[in-house]
C-alpha cells in the first residue's frame, strides 16, 4: 500500500479533531476522503503530507515514516484546500520555482513548467503576477504546481474549488492517469457525485472517526441502501447515524 494511516490522533487544544483514524490507499487507487464540515478531513490531509505532526498514531507514505523521513516528499504532489500562493511571483517564476524545489534540473523544470502550464491552460498568463489572477486561474496554477514533478502520489484537498468544468476534467483525467500508472490519489472533497464516478474506494469521516470505508458499493450496503441509490443518500444516512450514536 502507498498511504497507510494507523490510529491517527490530532488535538489543537480544544478536544481531538481526529480520533483514532485508520485507512489505507493502495497502489492504483483513487481514494476519497469524505465527511461533513469539521469532520477532520483537512487535518488528516495535512498530517499525511507532513504539514502537521500527529499527536498519536503512525502514517507511512511509500513505506516512509511521516513526517520524519522527508524523502517521501519527492514522490508527492499536494494541493491544499485554499492554496495561498506567492503573489509577488509571476506564474512562470512560481512554476519554475516549484520544479526546482521538487528536485528537477533547471532545463527540465522549465520544460515541465511549460508543459503543465499548457495542460491547465495558464500558459497565456506566464508573465503575469499571481496577484493579478482570478481565483479560478490561481487554482489552475496551484494544480499545475502540484503535478509539476509527475508525482506518484497525489494528495488533493477540495481540488475542484473554483475550477471550471474544463479544468475539472483535466484534473480528473490526471488523477485517473496517476492511479493507472501505479500511483495513488487521496482526494478530500464535498462533491459526492465526483467521488462516485472517480474514486475506487472512499472513507467517510465524522467527528474525527472513520464511520465507513470501502468501495462505493460497500458504503451503500453499509448505509443499508441498494445499488441504485446514490452516494449522497448513503453519506447522509451514515453521518446522521454516527451522530446519533455519539450524541
Amino acid at each position, binding site marked *: 500500500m502507498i498511504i497507510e494511516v494507523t490510529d491517527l490522533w490530532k488535538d489543537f487544544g480544544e478536544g481531538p*479533531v481526529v480520533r483514532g483514524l485508520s485507512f489505507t490507499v493502495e497502489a492504483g487507487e483513487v481514494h476519497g476522503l469524505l465527511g461533513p464540515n469539521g469532520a477532520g478531513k483537512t487535518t488528516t490531509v495535512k498530517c499525511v503530507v507532513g504539514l502537521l505532526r500527529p499527536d498519536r498514531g503512525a502514517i507511512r507514505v511509500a513505506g516512509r515514516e511521516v513526517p520524519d523521513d522527508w524523502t517521501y*516528499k519527492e514522490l508527492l504532489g499536494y494541493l491544499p484546500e485554499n492554496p*495561498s500562493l*506567492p503573489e509577488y*511571483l509571476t506564474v512562470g*517564476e512560481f512554476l*519554475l520555482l516549484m520544479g526546482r524545489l521538487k528536485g528537477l534540473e533547471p532545463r527540465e523544470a522549465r520544460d515541465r513548467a511549460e508543459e503543465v502550464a499548457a495542460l491547465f491552460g495558464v500558459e497565456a498568463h506566464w508573465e503575469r503576477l499571481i*496577484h493579478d489572477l482570478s481565483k479560478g486561474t490561481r487554482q489552475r496554477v496551484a494544480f499545475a504546481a502540484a503535478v509539476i514533478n509527475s508525482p506518484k502520489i497525489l494528495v488533493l484537498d477540495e481540488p475542484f474549488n473554483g475550477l471550471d468544468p474544463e479544468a475539472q476534467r483535466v484534473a480528473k483525467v490526471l488523477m485517473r492517469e496517476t492511479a493507472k500508472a501505479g500511483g495513488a490519489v487521496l482526494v478530500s472533497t464535498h462533491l459526492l457525485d465526483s467521488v462516485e464516478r472517480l474514486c475506487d474506494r472512499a472513507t467517510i469521516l465524522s467527528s474525527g472517526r472513520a464511520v465507513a470505508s470501502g468501495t462505493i458499493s460497500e458504503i451503500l450496503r453499509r448505509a443499508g441502501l441498494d445499488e441504485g441509490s446514490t452516494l449522497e443518500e448513503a453519506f447522509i444516512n451514515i453521518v446522521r447515524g454516527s451522530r446519533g450514536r455519539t450524541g
Partner: protein
Amino acid sequence: MIRLLLSAKVKQYFGHVRRSPRSVFSLVTFYLLWTFVVGALALFLRFLGSSALGGVSGALEVLSLVTVTSMLGIGAFLGTRGGVTAFPYEVEFVLTSPVRPHVFLLSDLAFQVMLLSLYSVPSSLVAISVLTYPRHLAYLPTAALTYLTAILMAAMTSHLLGVSRAVVGERASRAMGWAVMGLVVLPVVLLAVGIDSPPWMAYHPVQALALLLAGDASRLPVVSLYLALLVAAYAVLSRARFYTAVSPLLMTVLMEPPRRMPRYLRIPGVLSASIGLVGRGGLWWTMYALHLTRISREGSLWTGAMVLAFLTLVNSAIPRLTGFGSFPRLAELSMVAMYTPLLPALLAINWNVSERRNTWYISVTGDALRSYVGTLPLSYLTVTVVFSGLLYALISLGAEEVPFLLVDSLLLFAMSSFGSLLSVAISVSSRVATSPLSLGSLLYVLFPMLGSALLSLPVVVVRVLYPAPDVVSPVLLAGLCVYVVSASALLWRVVTSSGPRYLREFQEP
C-alpha cells in the same frame, strides 16, 4: 451604531487576549515592560539634560518636539501610504452594509485614538514625570491633554488624507500627503541641520503643540485654532463616499498596496536580476533570490527604508539641541545604529503578514525549508547593511566628515546582522499573530532593537571609550570582528536548525 462598530473593532483587535488568561498576563507584562523602557530612556535623557546639555527644560522641549513630530508624521505617513484602513471583516461585511461613511470613519477614529492613547499616553506621562520630578504635578495635566490632542490630530490627518483619495484621486492625495509630512518635519529638520527657526515658526502646529506639551500655555489659542480647522475639514470630508478607497488593514500599512506591485517588474537592473535568479542556481541561492524578490516587489524595502530614514532624521535633532555638537559623528552613528534593527523588524512583520501562509509549498517539497529559513536572515542582512550604510554615509557627508571608520562599519554590520537574525528568530518561532499595528508588532520591533544593542555592546564600548576610534589597534579590531562573526554564525545556526521545526509545527489547523 458607532458604539457597535467600535466594540467589534476592539474585540477583533484584542481577540487573542480573550482566548486564555495567559494571553492577558503576557499583554500586561509586555505593557509594563514597555512603560518601564520609556521611563528608563527618560531617565537617561534627564541625566544628559541636567549635566551639560541644556538643562531639564531643554530636554523636555526636545522630547516634546520629537514626540509630536513622530505622532503627526506617522499619522500623515499612514494616511498617505495606506489610506483609510479597515479590518478585512469590515471590508467584506461592514462596508457592504448600509453604514454611512461618517459613522464608519468616526468609529475608526475613536478606535485609533483609544489604541494610540493606550500605547503612548501612560508611558509618555511616566517619561514626563521622570524628566520634571519634583515639579511633575504641574506638568502632567497639560501634558495629558496635549498628548490626547496630538493623537486626535494625527488620527484625523491620517483619515483626511485617506478620504482625499476618493475625492481628488490617488496621485493628488499622495502629493498632499508628502507635502503634509514635509511640513510636519520642518521644525525638526531645521533643528537637525542647525538653522535658527524664524519667528513665524512659533505658529507652526508641531512647534505650537510641542511648546504646549513642554508647559508653555501661551500656545493654547494656536493649537485650538488648528484643531478647529481640522475638525471642520473632517466634518466636511467624512461625508464623502470613500469606501472604494478603503484598504484592508493587514496588507497595506507597511507594504505597497498589491495593485501597485506590477510596476516593480518594469524596474531594470538589480531587481530584474534578482527576479531572473528564481529557477537558476542551487537551492540556497534560489531561496535567497526568492526573499529578495519578495522584499523588493511587495514594497517592504521602500517603506522600511523610509521609516528608518525618518526616525533617524527626527532623532538626530536630539544630540544637536542637547549639546552633543562637539561629538556629532558619534551621535549620528548612534542614531543610525540604534534604528538599524528597525528595518529587519519591519521586514519580519511583513513576512509574518504576507508570506508565512505561503510556506506550505516549501514545507511539502523535500528539505527546502532549511534553506528557506537559513537564507531569510541573509536577505534581511543584505538589505539592512546596504541601507544603513547609505544612510550613515549620507548623514556623514552632509556633516562634511569622512564616513566609515572601520569600527563604525563594524558597528553598523553588527547591528544589521544581530537585528536580522533576531527578527527572523522572533517571527519564525512566535505564534503571535501580527498586523502592522498590533501589540505583537511592537514585540517584533523591541526584541531585535534591544537584543542587537546588547549583543553589539563590545563594539559600542570600544567605539565610545577608545581614545582614538579612527586608529583602533588592529588586534582589538580583529578581536571584535571575530566576536561579531562568530556570534552571528552561532545565532544563524540556531535559527536555521530550529526555525524549520517551528514553521512546520505552527501550521494552522
